[in-house]
């Protein structure tokens, strides 16, 4: 009896080990069978992704995700977990792909694969319209707001690593005295609008979100040139090379036929799919 229990245990172990390589293509098989790819994205990141007038997900990231899904012959379905939940990894099939302007870093590459960079966001610095700062160097020692665990925060703290291929080089233009991190960029803008230096002297954020806030009547202006260009990629969990290949193919096709550039123009008014 005892031997058979051991034998059974061994058999189970062997099966489990054998199951590992079989997992390649597993996600692709599952989503193809379901006809639906579940895409995780933020609901609070206009104009990349947000809830529109019809109370549906909309935005540049959402359109790109739909485009990728269409290339795979699938329907895109959106889920909106918090950013930290997405970046924690371990998706367990709750969602299959993340199209949410994630910057590929070597730290994140331990958890995710980045099959395709689909655009670049210029990161810029916003100050209150009353601010006397004339150049980025004037922000040395000032209080700067950013978004928690973002590349903007890393830039403000001067420990930004952009080690993905194709990331343009950058320099640190200023050294803040204090970096305050917010859950999202609009909270940072809300604090900045209170007045120059009331709570914040400047906010490091993406140029599109700064321009958006400006358009919505926030008393802020962009200071200087963009500080760095952040490559942004589609993220999937490791282990399904076939899915990765398909996504890379889809993004390459969208780039080649100009759809990606069109989408960027539609949402930002500028083609962010190339760096200048």
């Amino acid at each position: 009896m005892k031997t058979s229990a051991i034998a059974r245990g061994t058999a189970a172990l062997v099966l489990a080990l054998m199951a590992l390589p079989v997992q390649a293509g597993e996600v692709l098989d599952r989503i193809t069978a379901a006809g639906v790819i579940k895409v995780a994205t933020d609901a609070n990141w206009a104009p990349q992704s947000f809830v529109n007038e019809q109370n549906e997900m909309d935005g540049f990231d959402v359109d790109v995700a739909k485009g990728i899904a269409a290339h795979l012959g699938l329907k895109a379905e959106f889920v909106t977990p918090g950013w930290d939940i997405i970046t924690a990894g371990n998706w367990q099939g709750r969602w299959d792909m993340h199209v949410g302007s994630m910057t590929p870093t070597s730290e994140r590459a331990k958890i995710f694969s980045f099959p395709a960079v689909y655009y670049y966001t210029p990161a810029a610095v916003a100050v209150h319209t009353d601010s006397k700062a004339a150049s980025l160097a004037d922000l040395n020692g000032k209080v700067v707001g950013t978004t928690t665990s973002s590349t903007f925060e890393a830039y403000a703290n001067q420990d930004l690593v952009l080690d993905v291929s194709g990331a343009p080089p950058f320099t640190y233009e200023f050294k803040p005295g204090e970096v305050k991190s917010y859950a999202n960029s609009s909270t940072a803008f809300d604090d900045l609008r209170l007045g120059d230096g009331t709570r914040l002297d400047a906010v490091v954020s993406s140029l599109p979100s700064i321009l958006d806030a400006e358009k919505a009547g926030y008393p802020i202006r962009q200071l200087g040139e963009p500080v760095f260009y952040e490559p942004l990629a589609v993220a999937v969990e490791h282990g399904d090379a076939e899915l990765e290949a398909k996504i890379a193919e889809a993004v390459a096709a969208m780039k080649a036929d100009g759809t990606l550039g069109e989408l960027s123009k539609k949402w930002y008014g500028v083609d962010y799919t190339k760096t200048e």
Partner: protein
Amino acid sequence: MLYSDTVDSEVLVHKPWFVAAMFLAVFLVLMPFNLAGSGMGELMRPVIGDPAVSGLFGRASIAFVLALLFCINVALIAFLPLRLQVLVVWFELLMLFLAFFQTFNLSLPFIAEKLPFMITQGLLTTVYISAVSIAIATVIAILGAVAKLSNNGFVYAVASFYTSFFRGLPLLMQVYLIYLGLPQLGIIIDAVPAGIIALSLCYGAYMTEIFRAGIQSIDRGQWEASRSLGFGFGLTMRQIILPQSLPVIIPPTGNQFISMLKDSSLVSVIGVWELMFLARTLGQKTFQHMEMLITAALLYWMLSILLELVQARIERHYARSKKR
């Protein structure tokens, strides 16, 4: 009423020294606020001149007038019968809050446009999650309380570990742990059930302590009398102890329900489209989140008022025996 006797005495707010003290206190509290830019400043224009340049004098005049109005108001209200007093004060405070919200220049059409979705999607999800969690937490609380009062070392240890652990961790962390941690054990659950589990476990732990205290507040003699009548444990608990401890248990439990209703907003971090999530996202694109936040705040408040009314009814029901 803490204690009402039949000795008539002068109303406190009609005593000159108290009115003077109240006036001074309100005046001092109002001084730091700069109300010159508000409608109040416009109203005072004949006295203080241009409100914008009136400076400290303008400020003091406005505070003086407001403090005076406040004292007259309080003194007048004291003449009314009790129920009317409550109504008038509620109405006045409500008006003050509305005036405060008015200062945000909210776009009412935007609120009207989003309100149906906030109710059908957000409010319903919130109520659903809270209601299920409340039911589960109550069951856990009864079991936990009995376990914590048990002589069985194993059961006591499990129950006390449970209450210590789930009262000791922030609820937000529990939500994360359950949503991200359970999959490590091979159990993959969606966001809504994960939120319900976290809320039930956390509030079950708090309510365990409430129920335990309620049960312990019943005199030993009740147990002894019940035992001497030959009642077993279950019967004693159901027929003698719990009915008597309910009046003790209900007020803090009502508190827990109200607080759970609002803490259900924490599950928005795992992407559940409930009231808080919608409040943070719907106005985002157009930078109208103040509108959505205030709408959600009022919806939460209305739900809480409903719960308060239910609680008051139940309390009245159990207070029958104390009526004279």
